[in-house]
């Protein structure tokens, strides 16, 4: 290898691409007729979306008594699913914001799809608390506004209200970030399109021309949005954890919750990004842009955050024992060996044990292992939320009110239905917008393209004296 190229620089764009190749490869999926795989996936996803709508109408019509939640276990699948989806929604902004601040170039291959995934996951998450309210037509009461009821305001001291602010801010800021990044790429699609498609993309690309001043402002905006989204993304799951941590329920009332929830959110978010990326790169043929190096980088994040989560689980148990407080000790004994022991062990296996396989380089770089383990992590993180919520509530202070919880078909339909909603939105997204940030990939071509670095690099790239970037 040459001295001019740092060995830590990985090849992130393969196939000796020119700028035009990048445009072609990334715009084509939005231009040609959908593939058979896409149509099948879309049909399946919309079927589940239909199921979702049916179950929601059922819930609203009959009331949430149709759910299995009861007086003791009053938060059950709904809040489990809510926290699960919100957690998944953390990877997008993490990839686009934190990795932008850290100047991680591999983010360009996956940021667009991850941000889209964030937005769709937050949409799915929002369904659960909204419909759990019961009288959903009064849902607007959660926002403080001058009203004819006094005006009676919301309780600003309640973590549930903090959540309303955190999640709506997160959703809208993620949307701005995603869309502002998308505008130049929509302009690229516009400039290739004709007829009515051109008209549509003209509207959605806001008249972008690529002027130098616009690019400068665009970069300034992206950087500041990244800077403020970084604490935002950390605050969102912190505040979600406050829903539990500020209560007085043994097993919930712990100070470790905020960092542990945030690590878990990043963990599950990356797992979902992996699941989607492995499928997307295959179906859309983007293996040269979402390379094994990208997958490996994300697997490293998974093994790190998975280990943090594992340490948090063990710390919880230790502190419960060390506190000498019998209610706390019982809560955790019950969590491990109680009625829902199977979900605790499912969680431990999927979240703590399984990602440790990623210490092996060959597993980290294997697409099949990545897919398999990412699905396991998704399952494990669902178990984690179920463990925290259902196990804790099932055995509260009064043994006379102890209870057990089983989901009804309505809850199962709503949950699987939100997965349908998520994939329907994602599949539509892959058809209408470039799933990889075209402009950002072009911007790193000369530092991460395989014709410039690595073993495939052309001869002149090895010339340490040459300062000028080689031309293609």
């Amino acid at each position, binding site marked *: 290898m040459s001295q001019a190229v740092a060995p830590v620089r990985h090849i992130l764009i393969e196939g000796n691409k*020119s*700028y*035009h190749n990048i*445009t072609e490869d990334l715009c084509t999926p939005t231009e040609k007729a959908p593939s058979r795989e896409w149509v099948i996936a879309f049909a399946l996803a919309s079927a589940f979306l239909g199921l979702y709508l049916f179950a929601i109408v059922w819930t609203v019509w009959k009331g949430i008594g149709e759910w299995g939640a009861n007086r003791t276990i009053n938060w059950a699948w709904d809040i489990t699913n809510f926290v699960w989806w919100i957690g998944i929604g953390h990877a997008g902004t993490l990839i686009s914001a934190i990795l932008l601040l850290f100047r991680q170039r591999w983010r360009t291959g996956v940021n667009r799809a991850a941000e889209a995934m964030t937005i769709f996951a937050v949409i799915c998450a929002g369904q659960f608390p909204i419909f759990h309210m019961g009288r959903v037509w009064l849902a607007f009461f959660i926002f*403080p506004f001058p009203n004819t009821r*006094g*005006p*009676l*305001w919301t309780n*600003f*001291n309640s*973590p549930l*209200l903090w959540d309303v*602010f*955190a999640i709506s*801010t997160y959703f*809208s*800021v993620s949307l*701005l*970030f995603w869309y*502002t990044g998308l505008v*130049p790429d929509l*302009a*690229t699609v*516009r*400039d*290739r399109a004709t007829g009515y498609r051109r008209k549509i993309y003209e*509207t*959605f690309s*806001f*008249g*972008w*021309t*690529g*002027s*130098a*001043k*616009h*690019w*400068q*402002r665009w*970069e*300034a*905006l992206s*950087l*500041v*949005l990244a800077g*403020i*989204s970084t604490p*935002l993304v950390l*605050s969102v799951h912190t*505040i979600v954890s*406050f829903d539990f941590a500020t209560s007085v329920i043994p097993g919930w009332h712990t100070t470790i919750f905020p960092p542990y929830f945030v690590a878990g959110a990043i963990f599950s978010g990356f797992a979902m990004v992996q699941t989607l990326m492995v499928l997307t790169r295959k179906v859309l043929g983007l293996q040269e842009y979402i390379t094994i190096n990208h997958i490996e980088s994300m697997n490293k994040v998974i093994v790190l955050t998975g280990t943090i989560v594992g340490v948090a689980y063990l710390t919880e148990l230790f502190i419960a024992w060390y506190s000498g407080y019998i209610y706390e000790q019982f809560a955790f004994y019950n969590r491990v060996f109680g009625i829902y022991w199977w979900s605790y062990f499912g969680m431990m296996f999927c979240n703590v044990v399984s990602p440790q396989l990623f210490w092996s380089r060959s597993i980290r770089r294997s697409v099949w292992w990545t897919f398999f383990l990412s699905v396991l992590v998704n399952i494990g993180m669902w178990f984690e939320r179920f463990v925290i919520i259902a196990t804790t509530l099932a055995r509260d202070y009064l043994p006379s009110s102890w209870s057990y919880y089983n989901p009804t078909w309505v809850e199962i339909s709503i949950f699987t239905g939100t997965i349908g909603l998520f994939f329907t939105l994602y599949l539509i997204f892959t058809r209408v917008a470039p799933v990889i940030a*075209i*402009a*950002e990939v*072009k*911007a790193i071509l000369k530092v991460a393209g395989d014709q410039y670095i690595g073993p495939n690099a052309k001869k002149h790239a090895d010339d340490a004296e040459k300062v*000028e970037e080689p*031309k293609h």
Partner: protein
Amino acid sequence: MVSDSKQVLYGLYNDEEDLKGAIRAANAAHLDIMDVYTPFPVHGLDPILGLKESRLHYLGFIYGTIGCLFAFLTMTWIFTSDWPIVFGGKPYWSIPAFIPITFELTVLFAAWGMTLTFYTICGLWPGVKAQSLDNRITDDKFCIAFDVTAASDNAVDGLKQFFGTTQAAEVNIKTM
């Protein structure tokens, strides 16, 4: 008022290094570049084009401050004067409990304010027709444009010669 139609002479380059070289040459020859268009943000362009750093982030700070004060003062007003309620024996003005919402609104105002300002000062909105010189500028061409509406034929020839010597791949003139 600016007249509606403008004659623009532009050259397309195949590579950002060619573009930067050409801009340096234009600066040396004291040519007045109207604008430069690129398919992606080219680093190192701002100083040679003489573009000052964007002041967007100052505005971001101001918007954020507004959001921060708005959230904190509104909650303070509501809970101390408009409708004071005791929650769990805590003081009416329970500052720590106001921190999460204050933070969220700071971010919300800064993000929306900056983004809306960005689109406004760039003149980018739905329905705006792109003043695009060439479809390939958003693909793989790097463009330098000169406004030649009022220029003499001699000056135009001079610019064409400039494009020739700086290895522009194409030179065109367009009315827009």
